[in-house]
């Protein structure tokens, strides 16, 4: 019962080091390495469409991981993540344009700049809790969005701003095939960073603050520092994601970073599984592929007889939107704890197979 932990059955470790790894078993670790190695070969196999999807997954995934650190691990809801994502995009473009800082440096710098902004807006977190805080971040969303439209010097105002492609050692990452590697590297790096964060001191402090902030404080955790810091780190991730997005697209428009985007990030995190790093990635993949899959479904529907009546054809766009809403609803009804949880249950099931308990 209680000793029934989520670990493979016959798995013995002889040192704490082995016990402290990110991956539960050697097999899984090897598997992860093989997947990454295979991923490196993707540009030679997949066409740009798939690469674009992957690149989307990567920059959104990085930002979503940041949100999960804030929402899932520290327990503070943010409705302003889209705006922070946008801030990172503009900040990186701005630093590159205005100060001529090379792009590959601008990206981390944008991360830190966004972190600063995130912490500024996270300041109320020291005093405000729960949904009140969520709405305070909603305010941040609108205030920052308004700022994008207003601050010509920073964002180019309504005209938007240009972002140079990344170049490193004379290599310009301006095609999908090339950018793919940047995206892959960034994704892997930021995910490992996240995994490590969560298994070290500050990561634990975040979770402690989420689970029981009063006792966390008594255990020596500086409450306000960590509440603020989690905003900082989550914005840092958002900033990095945003900056990648900017230099991938080559152009940043003030229009893109709406409350809808923030909500989408939340959906990714919740569907993936709050407080799960692996889950975040699953959620992002889900949310990126869903519209694409539905697009395919819509195509199939048009081909059928009943699908070809005018009411349906004219409404396909709405049917698609409705389907996205519906899938989210159904998904959460049947899997309210997210994909990560389902994954865990499947694993457990097989672990004990054929004994169900």
């Amino acid at each position, binding site marked *: 019962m209680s000793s029934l932990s989520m670990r493979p059955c016959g798995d013995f470790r002889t040192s704490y080091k082995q016990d402290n790894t990110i991956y539960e078993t050697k097999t899984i670790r090897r598997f992860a390495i093989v997947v990454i190695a295979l991923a490196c070969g993707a540009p030679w196999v997949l066409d740009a469409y798939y690469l674009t999807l992957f690149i989307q997954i990567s920059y959104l995934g990085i930002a979503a991981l940041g949100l999960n650190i804030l*929402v899932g691990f520290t327990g503070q*809801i943010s409705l302003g993540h889209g705006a922070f994502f946008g801030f990172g995009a503009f900040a990186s473009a701005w630093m590159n344009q205005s100060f001529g800082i090379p792009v590959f440096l601008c990206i981390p710098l944008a991360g830190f700049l966004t972190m600063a902004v995130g912490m500024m807006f996270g300041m*109320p977190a020291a*005093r*405000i*809790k*729960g*949904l*009140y805080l*969520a*709405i*305070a971040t*909603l*305010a941040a969303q*609108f*205030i920052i969005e*308004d700022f994008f*439209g*207003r601050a010509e010097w920073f964002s180019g105002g309504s005209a938007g701003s240009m972002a140079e492609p990344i170049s490193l050692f004379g290599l310009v990452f301006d095609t999908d095939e090339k950018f793919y590697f940047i995206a892959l590297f960034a994704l892997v790096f930021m995910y490992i960073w996240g995994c490590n964060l969560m298994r070290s001191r500050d990561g634990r402090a975040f979770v402690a603050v989420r689970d029981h902030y*009063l*006792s966390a404080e*008594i255990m020596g955790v500086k409450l306000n520092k960590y509440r603020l810091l989690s905003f900082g780190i989550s914005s840092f991730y958002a900033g990095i994601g945003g900056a990648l997005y900017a230099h991938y697209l080559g152009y940043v428009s003030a229009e893109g970073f709406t*409350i809808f985007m923030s*909500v989408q990030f*939340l*959906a990714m995190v*919740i*569907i993936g599984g*709050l407080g799960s790093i692996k889950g975040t990635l699953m959620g992002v993949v889900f949310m990126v592929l869903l519209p694409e899959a539905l697009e395919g479904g819509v195509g199939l529907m048009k081909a059928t007889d009943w699908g070809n009546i005018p009411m349906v054809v004219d*409404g396909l766009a*709405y*049917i698609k*939107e*409705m389907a*996205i*809403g*519906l*899938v*989210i*609803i159904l998904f*959460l*009804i049947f899997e*309210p*704890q*997210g994909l990560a949880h389902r994954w865990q249950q499947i694993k457990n099931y097989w672990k004990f197979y054929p004994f169900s308990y």
Partner: protein
Amino acid sequence: MNFELLLQLIVNGLIVGLLYGVVGMCFVLVYKSTQIVNFAQGEFLLVGAWVCWALLVYLQLPFFVGFLMSLAFMALFGVALQMIVLRPMIGEPIISVIMVTIGLSMFFQSLTKWIFGVAPESYPAVFDNQSLSIFGLNIELAYLMSTVIALIIMVGFYLFFKHSKHGLAMRATAFDQQVAQSLGISVKQVFAMSWGIAATVSATAGVVIGMVNGVSDSLSAIGIKVFPAVILGGLDSIVGAIVGGITIGVLENLAEFFDSQYLHFGNMYDIAPFYVLLIILWFKPYGLFGTKDIERI
């Protein structure tokens, strides 16, 4: 200083604010009894307004008949929604439930667009005279009607929560669903009731706004607009929702005043309430009337 403009803006703010207050109350009602932050609140307005519009335009019903019928429909709608979608979520993590309401909002927004199109439509004229002059400001009669309705609804809400055992049950459910169940409270019933009421009252607001500005998918934006109002007042305070709503209404208009007269920043009308919200929360972390969480260990 242009006092006339200022006065007119303030009156305008009061009246629009009252409407925010009514929508905010529904929001609070759902929150108070289910802990759910309802992101589909705006869609209640939307669906209600479209249904009423359809009854009036297609079936040519007299206004008050169509209006009451759409309210009845919305009560059923709220209950059904709760039964089909939210009931299975009872006991699940609150944030997942909130996400479900976001999904609902996407769903109904697209559904209404599909059925009714993206073009705004006007209601048939209800009053002979569309507007009335107060302090030199013309105010739509529909708004005055809504003021009366709002006041009635507010008193009703107050009595309900203070004196009926259902009010108690709702509060208990909000505090801890498991405990509520153990006391014999049917969590499902409580949920159904609060969603039904919220949908009905919101639809009232939807119809009123629709009469003034036309019905279109943007009605649902009111759902976002009441967030600052509700938070300002305190998430779980009915009185707070009203005060918050009126405050936000007046604030918007004051922001417009100072912006247009002095600052010329542009967009202050929409954005200023959020600045003020941040400032107020800094000093009153639970809004003006929200109850503090009990922090005992």
